[in-house]
């Protein structure tokens, strides 16, 4: 630790920057995700607002040096708000030719390009389809190219240590990270501590990684390689404890918190699926809070176990991605007809079928709204940012319990694995929502509804005097006995619909950013929040007459939505699908809203929304 340099001792000049976007890229075995996550953590400690985007291939270890095996991690940090992970990186760290080839097209002109020149062998160049070495042939002249012999330098730094050559090679990401820490004036203590605990069982590797990190840092300092370093001031933030959080972590903590607020034991039944598995991993840790997690044999068993747990009085929850929701949909219908509380989280990914499992998409909105047989409405919520997943997970549980209904919560791959700083709430100040009280046993009828919410009473096995049977067959209103009566079936269908419609009374009024009426409103839902807000804020700063609003409730829709939409001449709906919300809005409000659609497995760039709005304003669309 004695080698740690502080900014004060620095000889070289610092340049103040408002925000920076860095992309780390390399083989899927290069430790890119880990390097990026460490940089994010250090950036959180440095007090910047940040937004990250890990982008990795579906293969666990793709062939080394191949174009399809390139893994990337992008972080945007700022002294203001970082709404998105950034459109185009200012800095690209490329660990090999393939990483360069795949990513260099996104690097901004004049951007900093740090390349591991040791990896630019003839063989690796060929794998990346380069006919000559781009580090030498002048083809990268529009960037600030800094080749670094990362492998050789790491080897030198670790000379004399009892390590094999591959082990030494594996430390080079920390060497690069050390350089980046110097360049952006990030504290190293957190990463040093992290290395110690991560490699507790292999002290030699712990020592080697720490050495590599410090050596990379010292190298950047002493060689004057970069000429200067950069500072990004702390972002203004409400006082409180902050931590970086991914959307999947936030869902897990949200479910835990909902269990605490409702006083119910949490049951999470799930089957592994990308990109939702982290929720299962995270919750499995918290046995200390009494959580019961169950890795089921399949998606159907996962949701069914949660329905069973809900029948027995637990907070039944399950999480998956689109293909898993398809498999669960019959059970969703069961949960709807037996009217038990249940929360189903869908971390959407590129579809249909296996599609693009590690990429993001918003194409399961129709599935969430309509993807069941029979008249089977249920509330559908969507989180807007990684941290927002916490709040919406709690909201989903609250509605499920209050209205005795399954609730779908939509997130996506971008939110699930992306991260941002999150202010840790004081759990004791969050409103509690215990299940409603039961009537006396002699007054109990399984389908006697609460006149306010239309929810049926939740009597649990083990309670004397409330013995009753539920099931998938249609039940008679009030008494809950099996009924084939046509009048009763229609009444029950309408009652179930009316119950879900009542959830609209829970939805806060729509918040509009910008003018409350006028030319253009950009309406979003889910993970497009960041890109939309960034684009619209920028346009507003330029004086453009544009507003934006965001939907977190997709069924039922907010009661004031129709009114809000009608106040604008044009409504633009950016979505990572082919126009699903547009379809819903046209159907519901008979308004000619306009879609901006993208299904590339990638989120929107701010510039894409910007130019679509400009086209609308100019009357070009």
């Amino acid at each position, binding site marked *: 630790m004695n080698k740690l340099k502080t900014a004060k001792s620095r000889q070289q000049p610092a340049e103040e920057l408002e925000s920076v976007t860095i992309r780390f890229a390399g083989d899927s075995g290069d430790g890119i995700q880990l390097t990026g996550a460490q940089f994010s953590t250090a950036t959180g400690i440095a007090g910047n607002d940040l937004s990250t985007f890990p982008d990795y291939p579906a293969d666990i270890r793709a062939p080394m040096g191949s174009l399809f095996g390139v893994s990337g991690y992008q972080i945007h940090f700022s002294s203001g708000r970082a709404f998105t992970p950034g459109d185009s990186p200012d800095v690209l760290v490329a660990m090999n030719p393939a990483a360069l080839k795949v990513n260099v097209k996104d690097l901004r002109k004049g951007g900093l390009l740090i390349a591991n020149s040791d990896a630019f062998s003839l063989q690796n160049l060929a794998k990346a389809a380069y006919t000559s070495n781009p580090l030498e042939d002048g083809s990268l002249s529009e960037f600030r190219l800094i080749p670094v012999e990362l492998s050789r330098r790491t080897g030198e730094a670790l000379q004399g240590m009892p390590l094999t050559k591959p082990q030494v090679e594996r430390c080079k990401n920390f060497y690069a990270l050390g350089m980046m820490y110097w360049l952006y004036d990030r504290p190293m203590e957190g990463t040093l501590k992290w290395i110690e605990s991560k490699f507790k069982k292999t002290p030699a590797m712990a020592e080697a990684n720490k050495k590599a990190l410090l050596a990379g840092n010292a190298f950047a300092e002493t060689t004057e390689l970069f000429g200067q370093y950069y500072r990004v001031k702390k972002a203004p933030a409400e006082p409180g404890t902050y931590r970086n959080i991914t959307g999947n972590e936030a869902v897990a903590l949200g479910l835990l918190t909902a269990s605490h607020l409702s006083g119910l034991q949490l049951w999470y039944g799930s089957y592994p699926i990308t990109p939702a598995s982290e929720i299962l991993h995270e919750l499995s840790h918290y*046995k200390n*809070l009494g959580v019961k997690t169950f890795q089921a044999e399949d998606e159907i068993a996962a949701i069914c176990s949660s329905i*069973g747990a809900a029948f027995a009085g637990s907070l039944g929850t399950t999480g998956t991605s689109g293909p898993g929701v398809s498999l669960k949909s019959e059970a969703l219908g069961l949960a709807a007809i*037996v009217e038990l509380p249940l929360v189903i989280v869908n971390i959407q990914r590129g579809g249909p079928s296996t599609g693009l499992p590690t990429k993001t998409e918003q194409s399961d909105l129709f599935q969430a709204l309509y993807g069941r047989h029979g008249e089977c409405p249920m509330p559908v919520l969507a989180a807007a940012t990684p941290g927002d997943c916490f709040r919406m997970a709690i909201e989903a549980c609250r509605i499920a319990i209050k209205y005795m209904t399954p609730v779908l919560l939509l997130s996506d791959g971008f939110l699930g694995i992306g991260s941002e700083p999150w202010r840790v709430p004081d*759990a004791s100040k969050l409103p509690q929502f215990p299940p409603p009280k039961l009537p006396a046993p002699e007054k109990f009828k399984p389908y006697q509804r609460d006149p306010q919410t239309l929810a049926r009473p939740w009597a649990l*096995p*083990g309670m004397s005097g409330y013995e009753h049977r539920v*099931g998938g067959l249609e039940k008679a209103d009030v008494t809950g006995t099996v009924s084939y009566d046509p009048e009763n079936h229609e009444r029950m269908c309408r009652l179930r619909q009316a119950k879900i419609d009542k959830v609209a009374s829970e939805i806060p009024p729509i918040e509009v950013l910008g003018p409350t009426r006028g030319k253009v409103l950009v309406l979003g839902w889910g993970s497009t929040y960041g890109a939309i807000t960034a684009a619209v804020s920028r346009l507003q700063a330029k004086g453009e007459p544009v507003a934006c609003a965001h939907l977190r409730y997709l069924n039922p829709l907010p009661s004031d939505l129709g009114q809000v939409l009608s106040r604008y001449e044009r409504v633009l709906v950016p979505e990572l699908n082919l126009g699903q919300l547009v379809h819903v809005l046209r159907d519901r409000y008979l308004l000619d809203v306009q879609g901006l659609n993208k299904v590339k497995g990638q989120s929107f760039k701010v510039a894409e929304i910007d130019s679509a709005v400009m086209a609308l304003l100019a009357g070009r669309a």
Partner: protein
Amino acid sequence: MHDHGLEKLPGSGPLPDSRKFSSDQMVRWCPGCGDFAVLAVVQKVLASLDISREKYAFISGIGCSSRFPYYMNTYGFHSIHGRALPIATGVKCANPELQVWVATGDGDALSIGGNHFIHTLRRNVDLKVILFNNRIYGLTKGQISPTSEFGKKTKSTPWGSIEYPINPVTMALASEATFVARGIAADVPGMTEIITRAAKHHGTAFVEVFQNCVVFNNGAWKEVEDKATREERVVRLQHGKPLIFGKEMNKGIRLRGMDPEVVEFLPGQPPKDLMVHDEKAESPHGAYLLSKMSETACPIPLGVFRAVRQPTLHELMEEQIIKARQSAPTDLQTVLNASEEGGA
């Protein structure tokens, strides 16, 4: 290991009689259906146990036998096809104080729910599972099931079935079930004993019931149901006793190599090398061998094939929670705050 003994489950008041377990719903099985007898046995057995009514939950999937919960005046859940077992798993693990029963059929448990069947048994979830095997799809009006005989002609197999049947007891044993038994619906004393033992088992208690479908597969188990031929075609398993059967009790089973064979002897003078039934054997090999006997010239074993005590899923789950609570913080705020990056 905690002992979640039946004797410790709280009961209240005087023992109820079996009518207390009948619901107010009219039983809507076909007249003459084998299910009636099983319902009566279960209601009678439950009345004999010191567990109060509200502690029972009956879970089922889809099929004729899956109507079972509606006829029990306990908590009940009639769910969707094949999924009773994972639902029951959630019920039992969420509230281990409940005694959870599952009523299922050969199609429900072995076809559409086949995957859940394997995994529920291997996890030793503390459930009592009664599989009504009538070797036919009754509710959908007569198609082959996974237990239908090869060559069977049904609506979906007018030229005869070209599929080999599966043996539920073999499948249960292969799935590491800790309690496996087989009975005949019409055999009330035999069923009473099996259901009583299943109720008292800790872990998954699997009971296959040979049950007749009067409408779509009448005579499904004729050879073993017919009192005239039954005793020559079945052998009743008794723990620690040699395998002896026949009206005159003059036949036994012994092993020839890996295969069981029938040996005749003078009544009262069984040879010394007859197979002796050991339901508590740690290895399921013997039970497996017995389960395959029904596919040979040997008689069909009835009774308890296997009964061993192993920690159940809910016990292990609770144990992990207790351990975790000793070594990690138990308040939510600490968990919310905790992160390797710390506060800013």
